[in-house]
């Protein structure tokens, strides 16, 4: 699995209320959610994001509410990968469960700049920053998590019998 795209960068503690404000939670329609993604933090996001773009942020990304609408909105908007210093725990598991690729890497999150051309190779465990000509090592996911990701999310993993009887 790999991803390559242009970076859209944010700071620390990006909470799920700004990723998708609660006033839009009266729907489960993915495209509607995506159309309001990041709205309270960055009004330009929905119009400028392109399929395959990579979101990079600081620490505690996705803190706050458990709303799965947040990773859904990001994924549906076309973002191929989120790199952060670290993730709030519910966002972390939601992203894995719905098949939105994420990487925790403090060095990359610090270093990468807005609009950089970045590529991640999950097999090799490396992020390439083509703009700055740099590489960052990443920790591979444990097998259990990889199996969920490779199945395409938790539902598919359950249907394959991965969670036991």
């Amino acid at each position, binding site marked *: 699995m790999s991803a390559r795209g242009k970076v859209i960068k944010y700071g620390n*503690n990006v*909470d799920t*209320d*700004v990723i998708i*404000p*609660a*006033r839009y*939670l*009266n*729907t*489960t329609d993915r495209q509607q959610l995506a159309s309001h993604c990041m709205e*309270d*933090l960055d009004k330009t996001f929905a119009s400028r994001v392109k399929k395959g773009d990579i979101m990079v942020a600081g*620490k*505690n990304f996705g*803190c*706050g*509410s*458990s*709303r*799965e*609408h947040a*990773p*859904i909105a990001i994924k549906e908007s076309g973002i191929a990968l989120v790199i952060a210093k*670290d993730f*709030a*725990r*519910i966002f972390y*598991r*939601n992203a894995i*469960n*719905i098949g939105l690729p994420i990487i925790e890497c403090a060095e990359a999150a610090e270093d990468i700049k807005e609009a950089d051309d970045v590529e991640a190779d999950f097999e090799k465990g490396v992020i390439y920053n083509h703009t700055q000509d740099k590489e960052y090592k990443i920790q591979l996911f*444990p097998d*259990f*998590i990889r199996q969920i990701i490779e199945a395409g*999310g*938790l*539902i598919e993993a*359950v*249907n394959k019998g991965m*969670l*036991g009887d």
Partner: protein
Amino acid sequence: MKAMTMTQKILAVHAGLEYVYPSQLILSKVDMVLGNDITAPVAINEFRKIKSKNVFDKEKIALVMDHFAPNKDIQAAQQCKLCRTFAEENQISNFYDTGDMGVEHALLPEKGLVTSGDVIIGADSHTCTYGALGAFSTGVGSTDMACAMASGKAWFKVPSAISFNLTGKLNEYVSGKDVILHIIGMIGVSGALYKSMEFKGPGLKNLTIDDRLCMANMAIEAGAKNGIFEVDAITMEYLAKAGAGKPVIYKADEHAKYDEYYEIDLSAIKSTVAFPHLPENARTFDNMPDIKIDQVVIGSCTNGRLSDLIVAADIMKDRKVAKGVRAIIIPATQKIYLEAMELGLLKIFINAGCAVSTPTCGPCLGGHMGILAKGEKAVATTNRNFVGRMGHPESEVYLASPQVAAASAISGKIAHPYDLMRGE
């Protein structure tokens, strides 16, 4: 046998293991799966993609219509209807709709649906509330909820833990809310990321269950996986009164390892307010600027319990809400609402000029029943003050105890209850 924390012991038993260690990935049985009118619809859609079409146990699923209910608009009505149909189809016994619902995290303990030693997951981040009763309880997403409704299981990374040893006794007008705001101010909004916050010590006996529920509720605001309190006589009395299932008590092993240790002297805690736009921006009244407010909200899964309404009413009795301030009181459950009525609290609030509402999460997440306009400021007993949380992205939320919220409603600005009560 190696030493484990309270949380690790509960997880080990539910995973069928002798011992678990931090960062170990486990598959755990769950005793209760919770969802609300916002998260359950997503879960139900996911559930329908699972091959096995049946719920694992119709008595171990709770669906509470509390966020945008009573239905705030047509779309919210559709979401509640989807949940209602699902509950009927699957004969979910714990389905709570308008008329018998309450704010989920006030409702489940009150109904005796959660008990010590349980593993509880909920598609709501404040599910960590039930740690107050000595349960492992944590928020998850809708897909987790869907899979748990089908399998009765959830995957977890076993957390390491931070120990909070509580001593002393709270001063007048100081409550569990001030303690947890103080702690979040001290360790930050990611200070307990992925970890357990374990509360114990001789100060426990001076904290009511409502104080503990409020503190465990906000463990997530420090990034924690769960907050958990050691079980004592106060817990046991509460559980018995609520008719909860048989409690199983887990104590941390004497040599259990913690990442950090904090000593919290409850008698040193002062009234604390978290400034916009993070719960970690905690300030006491030692350096409180004059902040004029437009709205006060007393309610939510954090502070909408009877004891919260009692202390607020005590401050508002025979006083009037300041001109230009809208004060909204939301008892968290129907039972609390009724008890508040019987105690004459609602009369006090209404005479003071407050609006009193049926239970709902409503304004806490900017849903309905008290949305802020551009530039407005609110003091709220809720749990989050992120950008746009209660309305317009340029509005502000100041998090506080019910005592501070009530005093602020009367004063028209952020106010310490002691100053108000003494000043007259």
